[in-house]
């Protein structure tokens, strides 16, 4: 266990860890803290690293735990009425309402997005995804990331973030509507 090793991880994987943390936590300071906590935890767990996964994968695995810890903390905090978060969610709900006209039909025709393969290697597409994720309310974004990117089990998401299943489904619906609306407004399809 040596500090030199942690420093070499910082040099080699610092950017990758930071990019990953920033995508999920959407805040530079939180992302920096998460990278730091990850390296400290990695240093302590050094003996348990068996070399089966790459160092990068191992570090990202630790970082994911740190991100979940932060999500849990934010989720607990959000149960006390937070005006900023509440305002964000109100605006999000209004946009969902605007997706549909009064009789519950879509306001606008939806576009055909084509073959996902064509987007996979398009940097602009991924930049758009990141922007659209940033546009979700913090709570919707947390749940969306856990389900649609990490593919965490529904039950696990509910217990980790202490929300009911029906609440989760409602929030995911909003998040997915938000993502598709944002992508289409930015030229998808």
């Amino acid at each position, binding site marked *: 266990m040596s500090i030199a090793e942690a420093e070499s991880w910082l040099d080699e994987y610092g950017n990758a860890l930071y990019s990953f943390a920033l995508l999920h936590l959407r805040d530079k300071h939180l992302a*920096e803290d998460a990278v730091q906590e990850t390296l400290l935890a990695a240093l302590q767990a050094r003996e348990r690293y068996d070399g089966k996964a790459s160092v990068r994968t191992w570090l990202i695995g630790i970082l994911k735990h740190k991100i979940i810890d932060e999500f849990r903390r934010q989720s607990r905090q959000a149960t006390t009425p937070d005006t900023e978060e509440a305002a964000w969610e109100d605006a999000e709900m209004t946009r969902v309402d605007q997706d*549909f006209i009064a009789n519950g039909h*879509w306001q606008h025709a939806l576009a055909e997005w084509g073959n996902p393969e064509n987007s996979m290697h398009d940097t602009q597409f991924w930049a758009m*995804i990141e922007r659209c994720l940033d546009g979700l309310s913090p709570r919707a974004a947390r749940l969306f990331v856990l389900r649609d990117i990490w593919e965490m089990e529904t039950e696990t998401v509910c217990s980790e973030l202490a929300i009911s299943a029906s609440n989760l489904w409602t929030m995911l619906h909003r998040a997915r509507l938000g993502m598709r609306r944002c992508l289409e407004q930015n030229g998808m399809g």
Partner: protein
Amino acid sequence: MLTCKEASQLVSEQHDRNLGRRERIALRIHLWMCRNCRRFERQLSFLRNTLRRGVQEGQLPLDKTLPPDSKARIREHLHKHDHTD
């Protein structure tokens, strides 16, 4: 009859739970008649597939640089926690 708003909720929920038999039938009838909701269903699958693969294959997140001052603070912190001999 489901409205598109209700149908879109079920389209979303089928990613997260097994729909009941009635819900499944109601949704199938709606989708059969509604081109926008069929597109919505395809769009959500598109999103899930690309996001999952994007992270696995390293397209997402896009590379960002850990700011030098952040890096310096982390380095300093690592040294503070260095209790080795």
